[in-house]
């Protein structure tokens, strides 16, 4: 599919409450810009992310999904992000198998002090998704509202 000039990707960012959500807040406090098509959903810990939520997002027309959690060793619940990492690795291989570009999903560790990293990550991720173009493979047209 040719890259549409008007293409505004829909990107869902799951952020754990303790580090990454605070990191996102910090990039706001510091007025660091990133594209408006990134929308954040707050979850208590990265380990709350059920891979099903990612599939759901793709099914509903998301073009990219990113999970942000505390750095390894810093999870508020000690081990949550290790579980998250393992689960995401499994999901990646499944998405590979389905032929969904690997770059559409990503895991990043962003601490509460890394406002700049959060913004940079989102800019970069959004650019990547832009290059990949709209995601149609998993989208369920029956779910479209228009």
């Amino acid at each position: 599919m040719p890259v549409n000039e008007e293409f505004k990707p829909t990107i869902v960012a799951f952020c754990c409450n303790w580090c990454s959500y605070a990191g996102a807040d910090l990039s706001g406090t510091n007025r660091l810009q990133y594209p408006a098509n990134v929308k954040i959903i707050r979850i208590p810990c990265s380990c709350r992310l059920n891979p099903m939520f990612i599939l759901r997002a793709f099914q509903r027309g998301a073009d990219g999904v990113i999970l942000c959690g505390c750095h390894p060793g810093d999870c508020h619940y000690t081990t949550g992000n290790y579980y998250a990492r393992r689960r995401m690795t499994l999901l990646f291989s499944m998405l590979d198998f389905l032929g969904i570009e690997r770059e559409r999903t990503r895991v990043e560790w962003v601490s509460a002090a890394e406002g700049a990293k959060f913004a940079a990550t989102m800019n970069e991720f959004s650019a990547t998704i832009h290059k990949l173009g709209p995601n149609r493979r998993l989208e369920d047209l029956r779910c479209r509202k228009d």
Partner: protein
Amino acid sequence: MQRVGVFVCWCGSNIAATVDVEKVAEVLAKEPGVVFSTNYQYMCSQAGQEMIQESIRKYNLTGVVICSCSPRMHENTFRKTCEKAGLNPYMVEIANIREQCSWIHKDKDTATEKAIILGRAAIAKVHLNAPLTAGTSPVKKRALVIGGGIAGIQTALDIADAGFDVDIVEKEPTIGGKMTQIDKTFPTLDCAACILTPKMVDAAQNERIHIYSYSEVSSVRGFVGNFKVTIKKKARFVDETKCTGCGLCTEKCPQKKVPNLFNLGLDNRRAIYIPFAQAVPKVATIDADYCTMLKSGKCGVCSKVCTAGAIDYQQKDAFIEQEYGAIVVATGFNPIKLDKYDEFAYSQSPDVVTSLEFERLMNAAGPTGGTLLRPSDGQHPHTIVFVQCVGSRCDDSKGKPYCSKICCMYTAKHAMLCREKYPDTDVYVFYIDVRTPGKNFDEFYRRAVEEYGVHYVKGMVGKVVPENGKLKVQASDLIGNQQLHIDADMVVLAAAIEPDKSARPLATMLTASMDTNDFFTEAHPKLRPVESPTAGIFLSGACQGPKDIPETVAQASAAAAKVIGLLNKDHLICNPCTATPDEMMCNGCSSCEKVCPYGAITYIDKEFRGPNRTTLIRRVAQVNPAVCQGCGACTVACPSGAMDLKGFSNKQIMAEVDAICR
């Protein structure tokens, strides 16, 4: 369907400058279930809050969405606002349109559009919110300290000082830990006993402290604020209430050949013993492995000489049940066993000793009365070689991967004390690096080198060979780039330290976590260093990682402060966003229990109605809401989708996803 009210905040111009707040309120008013939608300059102000409360009453709102700053800022404020108006505080959702919208976007249309979508997501979520009640659980106002070393003693003293009862459970016959065996302490060289024994006495005399010596914890049930603990008081065959500690029995006992473990086997004691003169409690204990009376029923000398009538050969282990609000682990450390280190001839020659043995050999109350003598022939050693990092910072299976932290300093201390007491001795220290981060530590080490003339050699000792009463030491000098051969009289090995062997079974009982080296892990390595991840369990001293005395005491007091804070509360408010299993779907597979970092999940057998009026008994998961911290790990681990998290349920999160993607 909920009756939702939407409140869009301007935050002065912080939001209103880049987001068309009026439009946001207008568009969101058309969302399903929204019965009222408005915007206002400062929602968090008194007037703003009153407006929210009025609207709740006027429109009978069952859900509230506030489009404002980050929930990390004002979620609690708005929850309280709504609660005062009679709405359950958990029926409030915040759409973060400041930090995550107006502050990062410049174009007003884009920002407005995004704010609307974020508002929609919050509305979609609030429709699925359920009223939650934060439960409370009572706090038992008593603390348990496991381990009576300097860490445990300090923690207990501080807790007792604040007016709470505290019990110390110590597995040895006396409290005091490793510090009782140490001679002098770096970096000030004051005598360990002089600073420790007064604290031991304080602990013994404090009305609020009860010491269970020669005791162990045998089971722990319950959770923060409400632990039920069984303490096993091991039979010591002496009635503690009668024994006066006169010590007559320990002189008359005919069984003289018992290795004295307090002196690390460097001399012998009797079968009935008091570990050392200042022991607390000062009560005799019979070593059942050596007592002839207990083994063959023949002897009874101690019973005959005891004028207090304290000896009781029939004594049995006693079990005591007690309830606690908080538990502090202070089980300390031990030097590792050196039997795998044949190259240093530790097992071949009595003149190769560990640093802790060396402390006893230098100690006025030790086996040699404080005169440094070779264990083999009782002669003064003239050349002493110290080897650092024995088993520390090792990548092989013999040793430990970490730095034991205290050895550099106590080796400098030993070398210095040797040179001070016996200026004619030659003292060598072999090291990988000398690590002296600590107040006055580097100065201390430099004094050893510069004032006391200790020969510090960078390099490792390759081999120690006992030969003709000497110890032939082969070593490399990395800076001089040469091989050294030293004829030493004594070799002292700075053995790595490791957690007490009883720590792992204890951690299992407490559902506290440990690292791969069996040190207890803290709730957060930087911000919560004295709490274990398990609520109500605190860490004190070397059980959490290698530590010297100043650090141990600092952590002990910090742990006490945390305990006092907890015991000061009558009730604990529990986080209501906890996991709950759907019992109809749960098949008792244990997947959730395995990932829960807090041990919040247990299983019960429950009756269910089966077909044709039968009853089925099934094992189902049960989450203790007082223990669950709401991370959600279990919800994803559950293969049958039975486990869900209140406040962040699968449906709620998917509703947000749908709202964002549509």
